[in-house]
């Protein structure tokens, strides 16, 4: 897809205009994304420039062990949103929930795109990949998720793991993980992977990252493969209820005085301190609110293994396991060994008693020169 072959209608700028998207709306999108990613103001313009010059990027979207929540998040709005504009920038060549085609035709479209855009398409994955028993626990058109991922990833330019399942294994991987679910990054090792975790991820985070990839390439990632721009801070660091935490004012239930006053939700289990995401700044539903604002603690859904990190309603400073049985067992074992050791001690003592010979006056004489 070299520049000279691209005519005006094929560029994004052209296609937007033909789709009735005003330049104003387009610029607004760019500045929204740029500000959400904390890019400098000039970047919005650069992004708009680049986007309007770019051709539509081929994208293959694979859904594996997932709940379609991620797709819902990015598409489902009551009215068209800025975020949905992203679908105008990309050529979504395969997405079995969204595409009209089905059956052989659908799979054919995927194979076509793979061939046509070899080495240039972006692969988006939502859902974890079951690998146990050869991956038989989830198949599409008779192909296991594992096979399909390996096949499609081979010629992808980059991979975006959308949602916690694709990024970290998520719910399918949660204990006891019956299907042997793993994350994309556990299978694909030789391609750049961007993780956009969340259950689901924030729409603007997904579109923002995609826009960034389309314009400036792969953004700066943290140690978990997450774009720093959205996942650099913890929820706690950015939470508007943080001052209450610092002052030690906590809601102790969901219906008490503290809850009504909007105090910190740490004691009712908020995982904000260890959760990295943009909820507290970008918020949800066009910036309307986010869980903590609506009175529920953060459950830490954008962190690896969040489902196995103990109850959502137990404070972060408590253990994640119920240890009553363990402790009782330890007490019993300690008592048993203690009694055994005590018996040995009594035995040692009575042996010493038996061996004891009284100290008598003769002993005094012996040493008494």
């Amino acid at each position, binding site marked *: 897809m070299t520049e000279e072959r691209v005519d005006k209608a094929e560029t994004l700028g052209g296609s937007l205009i033909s789709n009735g998207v005003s330049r104003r709306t387009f610029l607004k999108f760019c500045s929204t994304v740029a500000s959400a990613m904390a890019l400098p103001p000039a970047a919005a313009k650069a992004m708009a420039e680049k986007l309007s010059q770019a051709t539509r990027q081929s994208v293959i979207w694979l859904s594996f062990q997932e709940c379609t929540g991620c797709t819902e998040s990015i598409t489902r709005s009551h009215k068209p949103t800025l975020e949905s504009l992203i679908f105008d920038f990309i050529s979504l060549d395969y997405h079995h929930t969204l595409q009209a085609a089905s059956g052989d035709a659908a799979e054919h479209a995927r194979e076509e795109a793979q061939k046509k855009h070899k080495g240039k398409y972006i692969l988006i994955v939502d859902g974890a990949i079951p690998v146990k028993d050869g991956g038989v626990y989830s198949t599409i058109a008779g192909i296991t998720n594992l096979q399909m991922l390996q096949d499609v990833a081979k010629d992808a330019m980059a991979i975006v793991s959308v949602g916690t399942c694709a990024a970290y294994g998520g719910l399918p991987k949660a204990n006891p993980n019956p299907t042997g679910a793993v994350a994309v990054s556990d299978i694909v090792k030789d391609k750049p992977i961007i993780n956009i975790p969340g259950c689901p991820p924030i729409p603007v985070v997904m579109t923002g990252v995609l826009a960034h990839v389309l314009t400036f390439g792969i953004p700066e990632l943290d140690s*978990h493969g997450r774009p720093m721009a959205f996942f650099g801070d913890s929820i706690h660091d950015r939470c508007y209820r943080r001052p209450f935490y610092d002052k*030690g004012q906590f809601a102790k239930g969901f219906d008490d005085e503290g809850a009504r006053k909007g105090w910190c939700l740490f004691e009712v289990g908020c995982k904000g301190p260890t959760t990295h995401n943009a909820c507290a700044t970008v918020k949800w539903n066009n910036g309307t609110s986010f869980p903590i604002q609506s009175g529920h603690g953060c459950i830490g859904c954008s962190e690896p293994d969040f489902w196995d*990190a103990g109850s959502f309603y137990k404070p972060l400073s*408590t253990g994640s396991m119920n240890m009553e049985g363990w402790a009782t067992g330890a007490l019993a074992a300690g008592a048993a060994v203690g009694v055994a050791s005590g018996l040995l*001690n009594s035995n040692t003592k009575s042996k010493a008693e038996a061996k004891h010979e009284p100290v008598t006056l003769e002993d005094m004489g012996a040493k008494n020169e």
Partner: protein
Amino acid sequence: MNEVELLNWARGPGLAYATVFMVFGLTLRVLEILSLGRPKEYAKVRSSGVKEGFRTIIRRNLPEKHCWKYITATYIFHVGLFVVIFFFIPHTQLFKDVFGVFWDGWPNYIIDFFTILSIATMMYVLIQRRVNPARRILSRPSDYFVWLVTFLPLVTGYMAFHRIGPDYTLMLAMHILSVELLMVMLPVTKLVHAVTFAMARYYNGSNAGRKGVKV
């Protein structure tokens, strides 16, 4: 293992193993002591000594007046440690979760104050271990290890709370892990005094109480 897995391990299995070891070890230690028995008292006692034994457990919380100059730093450190362990709000949540009893924690600035106080006095106490002749002659290598094991949770806790260090999740994991190390070391080192002090005081107080002396 990344920091999230580390934290999850620390809050889950790590805490469970440490608790099991600590409960097991402490039970064993206490029973070991009790198994040695106490000689029968044939003398006509002035009191049974039971009340005085319990009284000494409380009374020894205040040092004898001459000892302040040797004990002030250690004393402050123990008070600080006590406050930090039992009154930092997240910690009260842990105790509520484990024991089902709840008391109000103290504001963070007070906890901060006591943390810094404890860290500072602990460093002073370490120096004293080298400088004070009696303390020095009694010191064994394990004493320095025990000091470190006690010091780490304070420092990591402080760092985690103030977001010092590479990453909060990692610091929190380090903090919890250091506490777990402390828990494991509790029954196998002289840290066991955190529990057996009550027995020692009781025996001393009750032996003296039988003779009509308050110690």
